[in-house]
Each structure stands twice: as C-alpha cells, then as structure tokens.
C-alpha cells in the first residue's frame, strides 16, 4: 500500500491536568477531503493546531510524505491554515495579504503577481480585490483567507471552522465553493467543524471525535448508516433511542420486542433513524410498536411526527408528503414499524 | 539570532521591571536608614528623617496646601469632566473623538511652556497668584483625563436605562442623579482620584503659579536644591504613597488600562 500523505502517529496532547487529545493515529491520503467532527472541547481544534505546528504534542509523531515534521514550526511546514476568524492583515491590501507568504519565500516580480492573480481567480474574488479588508463581507474575507493559504500551494490545507461565521445561505454556497476548489486543484484538505451537516456534505472521510479521542472514521454514508456507538449515532443525524436490556442471552426493548443475543448482561440502547420508521397502516415489518401521535411539525416537503409509545418512549418519524398520502391526526393511535436491519444496538452510555 | 533574542526577552523585561520600580524602593528604604548620605551601606534602621520631616517648619503648611489643592482639583474636575463626558457620549463618536483630542492638548504641552504661559497670562489679567490660580492651572491637565476615562465608561453605558427612568416620570436631572450617576459613580470617583494623584504630584506648573507658599513638591524642590537632607526621602515616600494609593484605587474603580 502506498504511503499516506499525512500520518499522525499516537499523537497526544494535554494542557496541565486536562487531556485535550488522547493518543490518536490517523492516515490521510493525497487528494482527500477530510473532516474532523465533534462537539466543542472534543480536541479537534487542538489536533488541527498540532498538524499546523501551532501546538506542540506531548508525544507521538506527525509525518508528511514520510518526513517527520513534529518539531518544525508552522513557518517551516508544507501546510497552511485558514483560521477561524481568518486572521487577515487589516493594514494590507487584498493582494498584499495574498502575496505575503510568497514574499517570505522570496518569490517576486512577475511570478508573484501571476500567482496572486491565479489565487484570486481560483477563489473568484473578482472585483473585490481593490477593497480594504474591513470593507469586505464575511464571505469575501473567507475567500481572501482561502486564497492567501492556497497561493502557497500547501501539501495540506487546514481549515479551522471555516464557515462558522457565515449565515446559512452563504454557508451553503461556500460549502459548494470549497468542494469545487478542492476538486479543481486536487488538493488535500482537512476541515475542523462542529456542524455534522457540513462535515457530511463536504468531506470524503469524517473522523468523529469525543473527549480527545476518535470514535469512528469513515465516509459520510458509513458513519451515518453504521455508527460505531450511541454517541456517533446521536451526534450525526437524528436518532431515536429506545432503552433496552440484555439478560441471560435475551435482549428486550422497552417497547416490547425481544430477540436472542449473546453477551454479558447489560443495559442496551436501540437506535433507529426517523426515516426508517414506517407507518404500519401501510406496510408490515418485523418490528411493530403501537404509539400515539402527540405533535406534528410541518417542514414543507416533510413533517416531523412525534409519537409516544405505551411504554412512554418518545419516537420521531418522518412523514413524506409526496408518498405518504394519508394524514395521521394528532391524538390518533397507530402502529409504527421498522425492519430489524435498520436498527443498531449499542451498549447504553450514561452521559450523552 | 532572533531565536536567541526570544530566549533573553523575559530577562530583558525583568530588567525593565526592576528599572521601573527599583528607584521607588530605594527612596523608601533610605528614608528609614540613618545613613546621612543616602548611599550604601544602608546603615541602621531609623526614623530620624521622618522626625526631621515632621519638625520641618514648612512641612505642615505644605501638606495642607497640597491637600487643599488636590481635593479641590479632584472635585472640580470630577464635576466639570463628567458633565463634558455626558455631552460627548450623546454625540457622534467621530465628533466626540475630535473634541476629546482638542481638550487633551494641554496634556501634550511641555509643562514648562504651559507654566510660563499661564504665569504671564495671570499677570496680564491681574489674577493674584495663590492656591486658586494653582487649582485652575491644574484643572487644565487633569480635566482631559477625567473626560477621557468617564467618556470611555459612558461609551458602554446602556442609555435605555435612562430612557426608562424618563418614561417612568423622572425629569432629566432626577434621572441623572437616580440612574446615570449611581451606575457610573465608581468611574467618576476613580477618574477624580487620578486627577488628585496628578495634582499632588505636579511640580512645574505649581512652582510658577503659586506665588507665595509651598506644596509638598515645591518644598521638596527647595530641600533638594539647598540642604540636601535625607528627610527628602521621607517626603518623597509620602508623595509616592499618596499617588500610589490613589492610582491603585482609581485603577480598581475605573478598570482603566491605558
């Protein structure tokens, strides 16, 4: 197998008594768009800063194309960062901002202008190049920050919460832009985000982090469809959790379904996605649970239906207005159904 | 080279800290030593210079003059300065900044030039040189401080509270005394304490505008120039303690950081 572009080897960091990142090993290939996803304080930014060279790890190694860069400062690494909040230089013009790193590399004259112009074209800054930094909108500043990093032709581009300061519309537009730029230059991007939607739509591979360690790495479909544990299942997408218990090789859900299951006696949790729940009036599936509709939230093409089972479990399902022609009324008792294959069983976690 | 510089940077800053505060400690130290030359070796612990300071014939009147001037300056600049800051806070920031810059001009003047200009002007308008002329002169360089600090506080002040008071039937004056003033009081007191510190410490302008009489600094000046007794260290310590105390309290109250 070919050598990965970036290899993190048992990389770990703590701040005093607080562990920020537990020993972590990741390989990232050339051309990958990789997302580090997790709630705030999970260590994803610390991990990114260690790759960028702004934070020194306690232990472990960082290898880029097989070369150990762990002890190199950020100014000497072949990676560049788009910072959260951008960190543009307000006392310089847009082209000066973009050309700053090249000048540090002693690039000058025609090559400098050409490469700056190339970067401006790449991020489609257009006519805004002549504005002062503080006259630019958030989205435009974002583009300058991108151009400033990309002009360096980094082996890896690091993006720290790149879109968090933008409003929803702009965020979606910039997501497409990031993807386009990534594909156009064939670069390797690592993005840190707490927004699972952003990670799923941007990245080829996602690492889900919690409390300093990586819970799962996989492509978006994998982490969504086959979450590794209860945390991942709830952090990515929406999930119904049904408490259950395994005793003497037999697992039972609170809602009243049992099956044979080997393993120690313990509390379990069953995860089922809202869109996997069907309304038994229409079809027949393996698992059937009677429930009463308690609320309906209209969302346009779909509606979110909140049910309560006889056992007191809250379940959410999705009503698709183009296929589900019958409307269930609030207060109506119906039967919910799903197939066992859509269900994921995890050991129950206490605090999540 | 730069890497080495980064290494010695904390050491350099440590030296600067010593440079900034060392002389203060020396003065205080010498005031408690019986060495008449204010030099090393320190000599024995002694209050002789403090005794001499208190026995000095001019000390009591200089202390009283200093206090009268400083307190008057503190009160006057608090009132005038707060009024001005209130007006500025209602203006467009650009206009307010411009006015602040103009009002700060006396702080920028070399004190000597300000002092001799005031001296000749007082002479021309027949204003007698006494404590009043000193107080007026001090106002020139204390007011900008008070206005600046109070204006900075009012910039983050929520004027809707005042509007609510007006809505509930308070006249502007009542609203000021019941809502605005209680909320900005710490800043105003802090700012006027800075004025007090500046006033107590002033030498040059006082020297030229006081006519007869002494304040503590002008008395110290006389002593340094003539007899050179270590009781200067004692008075110096008094002056330092005065201004240190008022600055510490002022900084705590105003949260002013430059």
């Amino acid at each position, binding site marked *: 197998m070919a050598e990965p572009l970036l290899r993190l080897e048992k990389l770990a960091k703590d701040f005093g008594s607080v562990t920020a990142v537990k020993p972590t090993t990741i390989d990232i290939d050339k051309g990958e768009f990789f997302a580090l996803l997790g709630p705030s304080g999970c260590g994803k930014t610390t991990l990114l800063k260690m790759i960028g060279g702004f934070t020194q790890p306690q232990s472990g190694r960082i290898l880029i194309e097989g070369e150990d860069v762990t002890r190199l400062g950020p100014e000497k690494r072949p990676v560049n960062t788009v910072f959260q909040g951008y960190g*543009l230089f307000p006392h310089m013009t847009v082209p000066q901002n973009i050309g700053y790193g090249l000048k*540090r590399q002693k690039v000058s004259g025609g090559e400098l202008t050409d490469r700056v112009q190339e970067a401006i074209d790449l991020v489609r800054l257009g006519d805004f190049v002549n504005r002062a930094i503080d006259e630019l909108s958030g989205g435009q500043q974002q583009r300058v920050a991108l151009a400033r*990093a990309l002009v*360096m032709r980094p082996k890896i581009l690091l993006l720290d919460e790149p879109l968090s300061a933008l409003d929803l519309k702009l965020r979606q537009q910039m997501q497409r832009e990031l993807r386009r730029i990534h594909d156009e230059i064939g670069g390797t991007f690592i993005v840190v985000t707490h927004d699972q939607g952003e990670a799923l739509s941007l990245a080829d591979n996602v690492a889900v982090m919690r409390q300093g360690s990586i819970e799962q790495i996989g492509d978006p479909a994998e982490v969504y469809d086959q979450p590794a544990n209860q945390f991942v299942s709830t952090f990515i997408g929406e999930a119904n959790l049904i408490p259950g218990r395994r005793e003497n090789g037999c697992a039972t859900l609170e809602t009243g379904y049992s099956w044979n299951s080997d393993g120690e006696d313990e509390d379990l949790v069953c995860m089922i996605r809202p869109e996997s729940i069907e309304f038994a009036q229409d079809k027949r599936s393996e698992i059937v649970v009677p429930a009463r509709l308690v609320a309906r939230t209209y969302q346009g093409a779909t509606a979110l239906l909140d049910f309560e089972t006889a056992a007191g479990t809250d379940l959410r399902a999705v009503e698709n207005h183009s296929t589900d022609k019958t409307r269930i009324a609030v207060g109506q008792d119906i039967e919910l159904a799903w197939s066992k294959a859509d269900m994921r069983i995890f050991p129950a976690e206490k605090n999540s | 080279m730069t890497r080495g510089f980064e290494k010695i940077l904390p050491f350099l800053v440590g030296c600067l800290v010593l440079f900034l505060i060392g002389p203060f400690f020396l003065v205080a130290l010498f005031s408690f030593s019986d060495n008449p030359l204010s030099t090393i070796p320190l000599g024995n612990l002694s209050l002789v210079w403090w005794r001499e300071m208190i026995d000095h014939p001019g000390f009591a009147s200089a202390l009283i003059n200093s206090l009268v001037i400083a307190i008057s300056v503190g009160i006057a600049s608090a009132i005038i300065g707060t009024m001005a800051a209130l*007006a500025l806070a209602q203006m467009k920031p650009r206009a307010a900044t411009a006015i602040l810059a103009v009002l700060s001009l006396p702080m920028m003047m070399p004190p000597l030039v300000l002092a*001799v*200009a005031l001296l000749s002007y007082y002479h021309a308008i027949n204003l007698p040189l006494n404590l009043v002329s000193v107080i007026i002169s001090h106002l020139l360089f204390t007011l900008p401080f008070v206005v600046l600090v109070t204006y900075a506080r009012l910039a983050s002040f929520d004027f809707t509270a005042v509007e609510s008071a007006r809505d509930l039937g308070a006249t502007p004056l009542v609203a000021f005394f019941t809502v605005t003033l209680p909320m900005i009081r710490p800043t105003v007191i802090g700012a006027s304490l800075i004025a007090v510190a500046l006033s107590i410490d002033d*030498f040059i302008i006082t020297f030229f505008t006081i006519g007869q009489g002494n304040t503590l600094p002008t008395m110290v000046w006389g002593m340094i120039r003539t007899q050179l007794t270590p009781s200067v260290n004692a008075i*110096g310590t008094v002056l330092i303690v005065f201004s240190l105390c008022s*600055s510490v309290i002022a900084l705590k109250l105003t949260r002013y950081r430059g």
Partner: protein
Amino acid sequence: MRVEWKLRLLLLPAFGVFTLFFIAPFIYFFVLSFWSVKLYKLSPDFTWINYAKALTRYIPIYQLTFSVAFAVALTCVLLGLLYAGFVRFKAGRWATVLVFIPLLTLFGGYLVKIYAWKTILGINGILNGALTSIGLIDGPLTALFYSPLAVAITLVYFLLPFAILPIYASMRGIEDIELDAARDLGAGPWHRFKDIIVPRCRAGIISAFIICFLLTVGDYVTPILVGGKISMIGNMITPQFGQKFDWPLGAAMSFVTLAVSVGFVAAFSVLISLWRPR
C-alpha cells in the same frame, strides 16, 4: 442621532476652562513674544528681536535638547515596544501584573523619580558606592553623573510608562491569529514584528513618541539635578521668568522650541506612516 441642545451646555464649563486658561494664555503668550522690556516693565511692541535672540544665542543648547529628546523618545518607544510586546504576546498570566507596573508608576513622583536617580548615579551614589566596594574602581566615577547620559537615563526612567501604555493599548487591537497566520505563511519573529506588530500599533508608537519627546524638551528639572553643568533649553527659559526678567524672550524661546518639536514629531510620524510591510 438626537442631540438635545441642552446636553451641549454640559460641555460649557470644560470649554470655558479650556478657552479662558489655555487658548487665551497662549494667544497672549504669542503676542508677548513680540513685546519688549523697558526699565523692568513689559512694553507692548512689535519686534522680531526676541526671535532673533532665541534663534541665534542658544543653538548649542537647542542641539543638545533636541538630541536628548530624540534619543530619549526613541529609546522609550523601543523599550516600550519590547515591554508591551512581551506583556501582550508572551507574558500569559503575568500580563495583569506586568501591565499594572507602568500604570502605577505613571501618575506619581515626578520630582522623587528624578531625585532617586541622583542618589543612584551621584558622586556618593549607590552605583559608585557599589563599584568601589567590590573594588572595580578606586575613586568615584564622574562620567556617569553630570552627563547627558545621566539626564537621558533619568528621563527614560520617568517617561517609559508614558510610552508603554499607548503602545500596549494599540497592541491589544492585534489579534493572535494575525500573528499565527503570518507564521503559517512563513514569517519568522523579525518579519512578524516588522510586518504585523509595528504597522498595526502605529498610532500607539506615534503618541508614545510625541509624549516622550515633548516632555523631554520642556524638562529643566532633570538637568539641574543630575546634569551638572549640562543645560537644556528649559534651563534657559526659566531664568527669563525669574532673575533675568525677560518674559518676551522667554516666550519667543518657548515658541521656537514648540515649533521645532512639532517639526520633529511630524517627521517621525510621517516616517512611521511610511513603514510598510515589504
């Protein structure tokens, strides 16, 4: 924005003090610089003689004064950058204490501060005492004391807080990620300092320089206490208002000093404004 005209009245006392006791004195003082003194009495006149005297008689003194002022102001700005930069970017939890020290020493002890240096640098001062007692020198060194260097050291000591604070204030406007970004783009410490920090705290540097320069130019106490035979222009102005009784000449000298100072300060400001990252 709604501005009640009554609110503007609140500015009246401040403006009153400012106009009556700052503008008016300076206008009078300026007029005075064209008067003459006859038989120990001021006499209204229009003569350039005071300016002629002020400009021709004291050239070496002006040279010394402005050299000292320039050296002191420049030193204060450099040390201020060092101190403020350390406090802002490196000090971590020590920052609060370190920024408090110049704030505390800012407001107090003008005379005492100068006097303290007399006890340190003087003939019988601590420095000489210490050097003699460890046997480095035989008799007291006089080179340190009663020299322009002693004047400059004392003034730097007195003025350093005035330089640190405005520089520190403008450094607080620089965000950490700006420096991280520069570093990420390959800038070493020197480039980060010259391309980011200096241009971004231009305003602070300029006001630090102005304050230090003007206060040095007008100072006459320091030369008397630690300068020995050294005289600065202040030492030439004060006697005109004392035993020499030539107020018009004193006024003319003051305005010449002010004018040259403004020139210096303006030149420095322009130079700093031209400082561009390359």
